[in-house]
């Protein structure tokens, strides 16, 4: 299994240069069956990462560019009256796919955002009292620009919680950037990329992820972290039980990527900034910064 996941990471790294850690996190998020939010400035390769992952995992891929005039129906689909059959016919939207890339999600109106987030939660679409099930596996990779940008509708806290992870990509290091500049950019390679696994194999990986052992000692550590966030004056509000569950699932996925059959505290420490960062609101600066998470990790004994 380690071979497969290593192969996925290696393949993706061919396109996304020098971002091993981010790729691993994104993959862990997918293995834990969660939705991923990539937040960074434009041009950092957010879209490429999402696209590459879908390609490598052999998944159906759809992309929606979110704009302020995007309507829920543009994402979910519409029922149109068919004169021939004298019936309403449902035209599925781009959401009926395995991987939906919701580009610049914070440019859409809250209405559209809510519609998407609802589907993310339920994995089904209900239009005109008819329920349409989405294909499996299904997940959303959303990208967003930092909230400080003008003309955006920042996702409210309650909706951020729907994303299992939030990652940032950051500037590449000098060597990777040089390599990138020497090539013609990642997009060209993207077309040539062949999938490493297919959807069925991915689902097998996901279920294997569930079987990664979590010992009592580890749960003690996890609970200590949760308790700390709930008590410390550092944070405005603590992590929810759902966040706790997310932490566990991500740690399991991370352990699997490391080729281990059990979770160790280091796994939690690795995924914590990505999983908890967007759920914790600092009391002082009101932005869940990595500094705060680092402080949190330092304060909780293993």
């Amino acid at each position, binding site marked *: 299994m380690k071979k497969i996941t290593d192969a996925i990471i290696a393949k993706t790294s061919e396109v996304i240069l020098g971002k091993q850690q981010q790729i691993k996190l994104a993959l862990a998020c997918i293995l834990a069956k969660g939705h991923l939010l990539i937040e960074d400035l434009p041009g950092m390769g957010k879209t490429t990462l999402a696209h590459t992952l879908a390609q490598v995992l052999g998944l159906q891929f759809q992309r929606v560019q979110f704009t302020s005039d995007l309507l829920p129906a543009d994402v979910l689909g519409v029922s149109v009256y068919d004169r021939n059959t004298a019936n309403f016919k449902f035209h599925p939207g781009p959401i009926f796919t395995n991987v939906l890339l919701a580009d610049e999600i914070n440019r859409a109106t809250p209405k559209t955002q809510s519609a998407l987030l609802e589907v993310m939660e339920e994995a089904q679409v209900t239009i005109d009292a008819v329920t349409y099930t989405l294909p499996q596996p299904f997940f959303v990779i959303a990208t967003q620009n930092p909230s400080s940008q003008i003309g955006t509708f920042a996702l409210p806290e309650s909706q951020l919680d729907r994303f299992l992870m939030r990652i940032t990509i950051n500037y590449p290091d000098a060597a990777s950037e040089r390599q990138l500049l020497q090539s013609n950019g990642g997009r060209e390679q993207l077309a040539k990329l062949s999938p490493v696994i297919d959807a069925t194999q991915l689902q097998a990986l996901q279920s294997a992820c569930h079987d990664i052992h979590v010992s009592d000692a580890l749960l003690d550590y996890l609970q200590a972290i949760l308790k*700390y966030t*709930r*008590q*410390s*004056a550092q944070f*405005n509000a603590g992590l929810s039980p759902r966040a706790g569950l997310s932490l566990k699932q991500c740690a399991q996925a991370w352990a699997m990527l490391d080729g281990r059959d059990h979770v160790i505290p280091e796994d939690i420490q690795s995924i914590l900034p990505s999983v908890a960062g967007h759920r914790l609101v600092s*009391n*002082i600066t*009101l932005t869940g910064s990595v500094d705060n998470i680092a402080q949190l990790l330092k*304060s909780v004994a293993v």
Partner: protein
Amino acid sequence: MAKGLNLSSDTSLKPDFKLNSPKTWFRTAIAIDSTTTLSRRHIYILPTRFGWLYGLLLIGLLTGSINYSISLGFAITFLLAGLGLIGMLHTWRNLANLKIEAKRANPVFAGEQAVFEFNVIDDSNRARYSIFAAFADKESDIQDIPALGESTFRLSLPSQKRGWLKAPRITLSTEFPVSLFHVWAYAETENQCLIYPHPSLRSQILPSADTDGATGQLSTTQGDDDFAGHLNYQFGDSPKRIDWKASSREQGMLVKQFQGEASSTLWLDFNATTGNNIELRISQLTRWLVDADAQQLKYGLRLPQHSIQPNSGAAHYHQCLTALALM
């Protein structure tokens, strides 16, 4: 006894010695990584007045036993003496090795009672009974702590100034189980409570959203579609909002109130407040903030150093108040 148990000195844990109050001479347990541990050297013990009375009882019984040569009297006297000693150890260990964890305090407005909460934790697998916590003998709370469990103590303190209010030193004490000995320890915790500025009285009305943004008060009227009700006209209200129809029905001057998703955006500007006293101006701004939130307006805050984009909702409200508190 106090001396005997506490002589071991540890330079790292010594508090600053201030000679102004004898109480500061005692060693205080300080918080390390937000947890304060009452270790052996932080605990002081003295007999209570009942302890002295008990000592008198023992002396009486002993002299009686000697005088009357009652062998069994010796036995019972010594049993009671043993009870006193064992009781002393039990009282001591009822407090020893407790851990105190500061909990988050909810922010309050200056003048209100700041409530500090902290968890007192036992990790020695012994239930603790009748633990008192107090701020300098004023406020006190009393709790039992289950074995390997925790109890939350709640102590309040009147707040005066905006900004962070650090919890003063806590005195934890107990006399359980025999009330013959008083055991106490001082602990510093990382409890702190954010004190929002005190909102001034309703002297100045909320700046109108209608005036032009030149003075920093911007408005968009497009969203004013949801009629929310009437208010009595006050000097300064926008004439556009006066319900002339209602006034013509001789119901007095009424002002229409609107509300809605995209209602008017209000800028609360520090420069819009008047006066020389910064604190009073902040108070004024706080009052506006409170009123704006009560009317569910969308508002932004503009302070000399930085500004907060217009928004509404609880998080935004607290963000603005925090900015004011820490200005």
